[in-house]
């Protein structure tokens, strides 16, 4: 890339070192990228399959919020993956070269790398295209692979690399050192006391607790109402729980671009659970983090001595057993629900949040489309960089129209990325709605 600045910004050399990555000279990038792609094709069978079986039918194009929002033809899932497919056909696919050129094959060059960087950072890995593809091609898998490839030629985004570095240093994405985490938790205990008059504990490293709760670190910075609600629910249900000082992060950004980070994050959580001797791990509100825990933890770090479950599954148990009750009148507003992509299309969480909502809010209305057909917020896969704000706003356009048409006052979006993305982009699209987690609504309605 010549003098243009890449959006999002590329990681600096000092950030790469901590992830055991290094910069590759621009002139060497195409060659190195080809070598990595060749290796990936050997062990990522899904990647090879998706490159082979696309018929270019175009069923994905109009289902992708990225294309709908940006109107950039490269953001059609078929075209995005073709940026890799054309190189794959040229180099790795069988057949005579004359047929390959008719089939769109193209040699890799520096421009290819530029296009990969740009367009694999405009895919939210939301998997909506996969719901509509007759061949079941999951572009998210291709984006994950291509971001991994880019990372290994020194081109992860600065935002993602910085977060992975924070995670490795502190056990949370914000890079909060333990004394700061503990200071914040002590403050929240005082807040709980002031609000309820009760001594509601936030235990840390409590050995033998029943539950190890793993929040998102943003719950301890900005979404504190939701976190305090969780403490209230455990208190009311009489469940012994704890946080771990080793890890206060469900959001596993490694999934988006760097498999070693993803694996290490998962290992850290499992180890924390084993060290504390808990009966189960409970994940807080985070879409992709949940997908990682539910779908990959057992494979990567199994066999596990305990189940990994979601907060909503845990709360539903309490509700059904009558251990907690809600007073719906505390949430009288018109509430609609945004399905985080990785709950609805990657984590088996569609009905559970709705069952909770119907118990704790008075006026719940569905959005259209909904559940596995729901549109991404536009922040998925960690596209939360300030420098990418114009793109984020465009990516959010289809969702904004869905929310607007509900007329809801509250948009329940139980995922830390969605909560970071939606306030800015809803404001940009002039949708007047307040964003809340499901925990926030549960906490308001909980009868203590």
């Amino acid at each position: 890339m010549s003098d243009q600045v890449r959006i999002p910004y590329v990681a600096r050399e000092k950030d790469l070192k901590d992830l055991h990555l290094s910069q590759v000279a621009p002139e060497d990038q195409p060659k190195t990228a080809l070598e990595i792609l060749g290796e990936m094709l050997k062990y990522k069978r899904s990647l090879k399959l998706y490159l082979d079986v696309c018929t270019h039918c175009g069923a994905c194009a109009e289902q992708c919020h990225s294309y709908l929002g940006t109107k950039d033809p490269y953001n059609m899932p078929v075209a995005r993956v073709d940026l890799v497919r054309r190189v794959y056909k040229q180099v790795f696919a069988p057949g005579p070269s004359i047929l390959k050129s008719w089939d769109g094959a193209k040699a890799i060059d520096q421009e290819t790398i530029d296009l990969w960087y740009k367009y694999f950072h405009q895919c939210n890995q939301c998997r909506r295209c996969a719901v509509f593809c007759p061949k079941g091609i999951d572009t998210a898998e291709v984006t994950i692979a291509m971001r991994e490839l880019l990372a290994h030629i020194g081109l992860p985004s600065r935002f993602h690399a910085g977060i992975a570095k924070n995670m490795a240093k502190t056990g949370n994405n914000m890079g909060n050192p333990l004394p700061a985490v503990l200071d914040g938790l002590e403050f929240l205990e005082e807040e709980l006391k002031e609000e309820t008059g009760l001594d509601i504990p936030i235990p840390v490293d409590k050995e033998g607790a029943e539950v190890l709760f793993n929040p998102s670190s943003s719950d301890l910075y900005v979404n504190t109402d939701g976190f305090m609600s969780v403490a209230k629910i455990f208190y009311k249900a009489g469940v012994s729980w704890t946080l771990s000082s080793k890890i206060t992060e469900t959001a596993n950004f490694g999934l988006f671009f760097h498999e070693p980070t993803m694996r290490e994050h998962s290992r850290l959580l499992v180890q924390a659970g084993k060290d504390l001797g808990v009966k189960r791990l409970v994940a807080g509100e985070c879409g992709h983090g949940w997908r990682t825990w539910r779908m990959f933890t057992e494979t990567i770090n199994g066999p596990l001595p305990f189940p990994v479950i979601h907060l909503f599954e845990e709360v539903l148990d309490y509700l059904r057993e009558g251990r907690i009750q809600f007073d719906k009148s505390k949430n009288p507003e018109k509430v609609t629900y945004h399905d985080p992509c990785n709950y609805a299309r990657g984590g088996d969480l569609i009905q559970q949040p709705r069952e909770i909502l119907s118990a704790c809010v008075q006026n719940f209305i569905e959005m259209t489309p909904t559940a596995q057909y729901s549109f991404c917020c536009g922040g998925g896969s960690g596209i939360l960089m300030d420098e990418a704000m114009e793109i984020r706003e465009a990516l959010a356009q289809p969702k904004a129209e869905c929310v607007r048409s509900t007329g809801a006052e509250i948009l329940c979006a139980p995922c830390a990325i969605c909560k970071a993305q939606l306030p800015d982009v809803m404001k940009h699209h002039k949708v007047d709605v307040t964003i809340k987690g499901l925990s926030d609504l549960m906490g308001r309605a909980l009868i203590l």
Partner: protein
Amino acid sequence: MADLNVNGVNIPLDEDGFLEDSDLWNEEVAKALALTEDVEELTEEHWVLINYLRDYYQKFGVAPMIRKLCKETGFNLKKVYELFPGGPAKGACKVAGLMKPTGCV
């Protein structure tokens, strides 16, 4: 973003306009950073926020949780946005010379 020049001293900024080196912060630098955040004049109320952020940062190395910032300065979130239109993380932290809070924020 272009670096700051404060009384003849070059102060490097990152692309988001945050200090590359927090140790280079002083009150004059704060005033120059405020201008980049559309804050023309730092009033007493601005300094209450800035000083709280600086103290917390020196003790813990990060920004305080927003709820705590509000509680201990006595400013609600709306007031914080009035003082720093960029908000507590991206506006106030920048002027106070802190690192930019990152993650799902």
